[in-house]
């Protein structure tokens, strides 16, 4: 499985450590909140809310350089619009992967 990385953040920061640090800190704060909201929406079974949560999480996936995972999230989001939960398991694997990764940065 592909691994998250900081290539995008490094490119954006252009060597400015303070920008890099700020972005990492925001991701470390925002990602767990968004993940929590996602699981709450899964519990409630409201597809529109799940779709919104996935959409927001998708951006974090792309920022962390997870190209294939981004496609998986895209497909899951499309399925959710059709009230179909297909892709949930793979999507949640990505969430677990990121959860582990952000502990290391």
């Amino acid at each position, binding site marked *: 499985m592909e691994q998250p990385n900081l290539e995008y953040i490094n*490119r*954006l920061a252009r060597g400015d450590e303070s920008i890099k640090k700020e972005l990492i800190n925001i991701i470390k*704060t925002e990602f767990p909140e968004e993940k929590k909201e996602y699981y709450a929406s899964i519990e409630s079974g409201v597809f529109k809310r799940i779709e919104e949560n996935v*959409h927001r999480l998708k*951006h974090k996936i792309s920022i962390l350089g997870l190209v294939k995972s981004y496609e998986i999230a895209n497909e899951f989001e499309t399925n959710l619009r059709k009230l179909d939960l297909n892709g949930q398991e793979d999507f949640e694997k990505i969430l677990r992967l990121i959860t582990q990764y952000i502990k290391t940065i």
Partner: protein
Amino acid sequence: MKCIIIDDEKTARVILKTLCNEIKSLNVLEDFPDAIQAIKYLNKNQVDLIFLDIHMPDFNGLDFIRSLKNPPKIILITSDPNFALEAFEYDFIIDYLLKPLEFNRFKKAIEKASLKELSAISTKINTSINTEIENDFYISIDRRLIKIDLPSIYLIEAKGDYIKIKTESKDYIVHSTLKKIEEKLPDALFLKIHRSFIINIKKIIDIEDNSVLIKKDVIPVSRSKRPELMKRLDLL
């Protein structure tokens, strides 16, 4: 360009601010996590450019666009280009950028916005010039300012320290010089045909040798001014 950022995701707002800081012409005034707060801000403040996330909960970017009365330029930020299609019905939408944002693509969008800004300024200047041509001007007579409709003037004659302005309805004597008034008159309508006369070329009835007939006035045309006069007339 004064700009604001609207995106429900803090990461996205910080990324946008970082990119904006790289471009000198951009001045980020505020950033908002939702469109409602931005609308309140825009009711009191003017901006040149908005970076707008389309996909936001409750009141999304498209709802926001529809709510604007005098929209500034907008650059859409989205993860899904399909969402941007509808927004392109609006001519104030400059571009859309896909997340995650990359600097080079971002810079191109800003260049587009700057071009649009220049084009808007140019249109404004042209409109202002055209308006000036169609507009009136004021003359001061006996401490009164009297509005004169420019196209109604058919002749202006120098009379020592004064000028006589002849209009369709009335004549006015004003303390001024032909040179001063000539500067205020639109070239498209008026021509100095003699050191003592400026005429409205649209009011010429006929031209004979070295004179023109305007209303009932026969006005001499200087030899040096004749070529210019002939050039300005629509000759068959």
